[in-house]
């Protein structure tokens, strides 16, 4: 099992010794900052206008929820950028042979790549904390809600990475890996909006809605950590890591 950490450490470092990780952080923080700025302005406006109109003033939790939903959206672009390098790049540059001929099991390789990408994305997630921190310093948001949201986002991110790794393991073309991962994750995001049209009610619609990531995430954004919704993400992650393992093993026999 020592292979997992050797691979994980190397891959993690590789993200930072190339412009990849800096570009990802730059992109993420820039967009988040842009959205946050807009949200805060809107929040201020509504807070001053609401009493005059006789309505309810917006809460900080609503502001944060909008922000976290944006993280979900930006992850659609960032996660594929992280995972496309995991297998596709190594296969393309033929450096994957080093792993294939090393006495490491496919599972060690998969988990090694997984912890490296989780490490990078966890740092991205940590960097996003500047925005909730801003609200904590200037207001009094529900800290439990922030904590549960981050747990939810972490679980979401892990499941997205597992899916991305699976796609990446199937191609040596980075562009295709990026595109298909993004497409797949986007599908999961919009599945609960599409479900009524696709399922036409009944059991199909229920299943499709269950598969969508957004409903499960919403419960975390409300400040509750539910075992059922956490299980969805954990099973999803495990399943795609298993698929990746199977893909790697089967490639030996082609």
């Amino acid at each position, binding site marked *: 099992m020592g*292979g997992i950490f*050797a*691979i994980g450490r190397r891959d993690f470092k590789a993200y930072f010794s190339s412009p990849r990780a800096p570009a990802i952080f730059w992109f993420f923080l820039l967009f988040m900052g842009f959205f946050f700025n807009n949200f805060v302005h809107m929040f201020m406006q509504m807070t001053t206008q609401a009493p005059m109109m006789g309505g309810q003033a917006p809460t900080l939790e609503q502001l944060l929820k909008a922000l976290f939903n944006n993280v979900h959206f930006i992850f659609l672009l960032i996660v594929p950028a992280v995972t496309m390098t995991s297998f596709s790049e190594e296969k393309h540059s*033929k*450096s994957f*042979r*080093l792993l294939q001929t*090393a*006495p490491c099991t496919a599972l060690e390789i998969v988990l090694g790549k997984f912890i490296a990408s989780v490490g990078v994305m966890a740092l991205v997630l940590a960097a996003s904390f500047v925005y909730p921190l801003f609200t904590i310093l200037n207001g009094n948001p529900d800290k439990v809600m922030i904590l549960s949201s981050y747990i939810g986002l972490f679980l979401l991110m892990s499941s997205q990475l597992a899916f991305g790794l699976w796609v990446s393991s199937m191609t040596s073309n980075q562009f295709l890996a990026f595109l298909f991962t993004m497409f797949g994750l986007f599908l999961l995001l919009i599945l609960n909006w599409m479900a009524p049209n696709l399922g036409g009610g009944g059991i199909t619609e229920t299943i499709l809605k269950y598969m969508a990531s957004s409903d499960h995430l919403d419960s975390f954004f409300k400040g509750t950590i539910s075992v059922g919704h956490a299980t969805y993400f954990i099973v999803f992650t495990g399943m795609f890591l298993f698929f990746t393992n199977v893909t790697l093993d089967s490639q030996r026999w082609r």
Partner: protein
Amino acid sequence: MIEVSGLSKSYGELNALSNVTFTVQKGQIVGFLGANGAGKSTTMDILCGCIGADSGTANIAGFDITDSPLEAKKRLGYLPDVAPLHLDMLVGDYIAYAAELRKIERSTIKARVDATIEKLTLGDVRNRVIGNLSKGFRQRVGLAQALVHDPEVLILDEPTEGLDPTQISEIRKLIRSLAGQHTILLSSHILSEVQNTCDKIIIINKGKIVTQGTYAELASSMESGHIYRLKVARNGLSALTTLGRLGLQNIKAAENAILGSSEDIEFEVNTATGDQILDDVAKAVIDGGFGLRGLTLKTKSLEDVFLQLTK
């Protein structure tokens, strides 16, 4: 040390390998020779567990590569046709990473990395980024990756491909120096390379093993007779006709000789006829007044053997 038997592999319609069988003894350097696309890399990929065979077995240092791949891979170092380098890493870090992947005991990693760097004289570039190195150095780093765990079996796929003549001779010297400590299987499509470095040669063509043996064995098995080169002082053309009457085979003007001016003649003597015929040739030349200037045995190069076999 390496035992391969009945290996077959096809890619769809294409039969890449059919019934490949050979063994490599401990400490030997064996050359795997074949034209491009003959099946060398496929065989090596199967031996290293990168791809699976359709049928047949491959055994590395007593461990079957399919049944116990981890044990087999621990005893194996592989340098593929494209060295599996991470161009963004430092040379020293990369070799240490390869050592870690090979599951060397943590406490001995540093010593192994140092020893490998010294062996391959990579000390000067230890702290440089691999992507900035020349092709020769990159190939040496690739070799370091295959050697760092001190494997019993070393498999090198065209190790001198794309290098300049100085680098080629350096790598060759290096490979020769590894003989004895490691069992080496080396592939090449350059004949002189295996002729110079290998104890035994396996020739593969269109996925089948054509022949195997030492260079001397191959050369002699391919010879139906010896080729001699005769040099006369004058009248080469009439010397040719005179020799014709002696019952020699393949009499011809030597390549690069212009008939009538330069007087080089090549002819082949059937081994069964014996060397007696040489006396007759010499006598005919002297009697004919052509002026004997030289009569030498021309050894068949591996190139001749190879071309003959893969025709």
